[in-house]
């Protein structure tokens, strides 16, 4: 509980500084049979360090693809993606793995926990390959899952699994936390607690959080909001004041 309490005490509104994500004219298309589908059509975007960014858009707008390319688990066709000074689009497969290993934390919509590892082990699995991991128990305490550390994912609710997923992403103390529809599979109350957790991570560690969602209400907690439609950013806005997650309604 110590870290959680510490988070509450040190909660501050972070001020955007220099851009940690700098994307220029990013394009990506998929070929399915004879059909070529353009998913991203020249994306330009910047997200400052320690910001919370939200990418809003309907299904098929390309937001997950954009997120995957930023995270180095997919590649763009052209354009440039620079994250924390690293030109992601120019990295070899091996260097890309290193990039993910050092800089990126992922939170997925369906949690993607390893089913036959316990809660603690699912976090250790990432702590093991990190250079400066946080203490597993402390992270579990922060996400209020310490008492369930010996349980397997199938013994947890969806919200609990997502908490573990966040703990797993946070334990490596990444610069950038990428969350793909983190509340997409959760009910309202659980979703709010998860968003609260993400906000705490941002405030406590200064971690940049980039979230993909179709839920427009979540935009209120972000510093920077991007609206994506058919592979293009159609609107970009900056919130001067952000709303605490527990006050978000939808």
């Amino acid at each position, binding site marked *: 509980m110590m870290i959680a309490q510490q988070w509450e005490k040190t909660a501050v509104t972070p001020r955007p500084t220099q851009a940690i994500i700098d994307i220029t004219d990013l394009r990506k298309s998929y070929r399915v049979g004879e059909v070529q589908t353009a998913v991203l059509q020249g994306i330009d975007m910047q997200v400052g360090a320690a910001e919370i960014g939200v990418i809003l858009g309907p299904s098929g707008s390309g937001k997950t*693809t954009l997120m*995957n390319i930023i*995270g180095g*688990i*997919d*590649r763009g066709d052209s354009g440039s993606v620079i994250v924390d000074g690293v030109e992601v689009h120019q990295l070899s*497969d*091996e260097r890309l*793995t*290193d990039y*993910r*290993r*050092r800089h*990126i934390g*992922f939170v*997925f919509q*369906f949690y*993607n926990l*390893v*089913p*036959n*590892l316990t809660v*603690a*082990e*699912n976090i*250790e*699995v*990432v702590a*093991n*390959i*990190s250079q400066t991991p946080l203490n597993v128990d402390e992270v579990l305490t922060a996400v209020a899952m310490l008492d369930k550390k010996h349980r397997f994912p199938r013994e947890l609710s969806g919200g609990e699994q997502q908490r573990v997923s966040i703990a*797993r992403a946070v334990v*490596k103390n990444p610069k950038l936390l990428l969350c793909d529809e983190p509340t997409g599979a959760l009910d309202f109350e659980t979703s709010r607690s998860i968003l609260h957790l993400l906000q705490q991570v941002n405030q406590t560690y200064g971690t940049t959080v980039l979230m993909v969602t179709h839920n427009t209400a979540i935009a209120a907690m972000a510093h920077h909001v991007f609206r994506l439609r058919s592979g293009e950013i159609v609107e970009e806005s900056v919130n001067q004041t952000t709303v605490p997650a527990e006050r978000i309604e939808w």
Partner: protein
Amino acid sequence: MALQRRIIRTLRENKAQYLGAFFMVLISSMLFVGMNLVAANLSTIFGAFSENNQLADAEFAVDSDLAISDLEAQFNAHIEKSGVIDVELESGQTLRIFPDNEKVNLPAIIDGRNLDENSILIDPLFATANNLQPGDSLTVAGKLYSIAGTMVLPDYIYIVRSKEEMINDPAIFGIAVLRRANFDSLSGTAVSYAVRFTDRADIHQQEMAFRNQLLADRVDVSRWESTENNSKVTYVTLEINTLTTMSKVVPGMLLILSVILIGILLKRMVERETAVVGTLYALGYRKTELLRHYLMFPLIIASAGGILGVLLGAGMAKPLLGFMLSVFPMPVAGYHYNYVFLAIGLFIPLLFLCLASYFVIARLLRFAPADLMKGTSAPTNLNFLERTLKLDRFSFNTKFQIREQVRSLSRTGFLLFGIIVATLLLLYGLTLQSSLDYMLNEGIAALYNLKFEYVFRELQSTPPPAGFEQFNAIYVTSPADANSSFAIVGALPESSRLRLKDTSGNKLIPDRVIITEMLADKLHVQTGEQLQVTGDENLQHYTLTIEAIADSAAGEFIFMPLEDLNDMLVLPANAYIGIWGDERLEFPEGVIQSTKSMEAIAAGINNLIRQTGVMVYALTGMSFILGLIIIFLVTGMIIDENRTTISLFKVLGYQPKEINRLILDSNTLVLVLGYLLGIPVLLVSVSALMQSLTDSMQMTIPTRLNGWYMLLGFVVVLLTYQIARMLNRKKINRIPMSEALKAGTE
């Protein structure tokens, strides 16, 4: 490490499948190590025995004394005048006695002391069977000897009375050695010579040169037996060769099976875990780390199975060798563990399993993490076969079952190959038994209408005893197959002792040159064609015109009129070497070279059939277990792959019985196909074994598989299948309905 803990859990969750693979590796390594160690030790022991005790390269009989020293000098060889005599003991046994040679075919004392003028050495099997101990007395040809101990002779390792009897009965037949003076005092001994060349290369050529010299010296050779054709020695080499071959083939097949199995298991696992792999990859795990993680599975299976298999194989080798030495007694200097075999037994499964797994995993890791997390690499698309098949006209059940098989060709291939191997093992012994049975009943018993065959030492010309029919014979070799010789038998044209028929079933009599079908096939000759042969003893060349082909499973023979054969051999028309009849005759000592009793031959073959029985049961048991493992694993895999479907069927109201039928019955066709394909593979491999038996034993066994045995084999395979189904039924029953509902949410 967290990921490593997952390995044990995964192994535990899929224990049946991994245990199956583990057992296959274990059996494979065990058989490889065990059989190879036995073969290698047997080979070493045989090599040392041949070398230390100067095994002759040939033994022969001539009509006059040889100038031994001259020949020894000329051919750089050791030649020893030896001899043999069969003595009937008072208790009814036959003891074949040899003199105590000093240069060639030296006896090796196994137990006891050296010979003196009042003692005799006997073979250990005869001693054991007749409860004779060193120090006991034995009366031989009226003289009382003390048993000095037991010994073995390098040219009599397989102690059998004649090659036709095949199986020795040490209770009634044995060999013994006497001091030369004692041996010479026996009346009626047959003189023979044994030669061993000092230069151990090109023995066959040296032998031919030696024989040509004898011919040039006008020495009449009445018997020539090359050691390479001496079944009492070659049976040992045959066993070594068979063991060496089997030690590669059987473990090899099992290893292939386990490699395929592990490959499939890993493929299934990583495909099922595509999202996990993708997640780990996305979280920053390197390809090499993921590879290392997934390679732990084959590594654990192969090391555990390999180590245990090597230990068990090494453990079983010594008793197995002891058993072999009880059949082929030889002096043993020591037992050697060949570390190369141990290393191969351990590392080959490791290498193959890891290599197969590496390719499976590396293939998956070619995909981007994002694709892996979406699970796009899993084979959700229809394969070529499934797309090509037009199944519309079939019922739902049939369509479903066909799709189950074609959906995973590797799984179906594994089942098919596994059933072929199980069939092979299952029917191997049965075919051997069936073939021996066929040779006895359809071959020897069908060809000969007689009870006794007597072969004289010298050619005879007086009329044979009443009721007996005379014959002459010569052993020849054809250039078409220089490795094995066969007999040309001259019989009376109106012979009633031979029952020959042509391939259409019409009766044939030896009034013309008749070749048995087996020999005609081997030498590729047809009716009307000429055949060149060379006499084994006189090295003369002859040309025969084949006039008929006989359908006989008795072996490889040419029959022709007695007078024509004598004419060909430049012998008097009425000359003969043996007689056939139904009564037991008594001859003065030294007149008869050999006596064959059809009853004894039949007993020998029956004995062999009985002995193969043990092997048949062992192989049947092994194939049953193997089949059970394979079918159980494959049905288990099908169930695992269809968990959601099974669950959905339950939700839709299918009865467990109906689901069982749909899921498990799809293997039946593959099972039948595997069994049917296994039979030709089996016949080919047994024929190869029979061929090596022919080469080593100078005995021909036709390959036959009795219809009843085939049916029996099929029943065993079906039984295995039913048991595997029964074991898997519970697994289906355990799948909850919620599985389908959960799957639908993602």
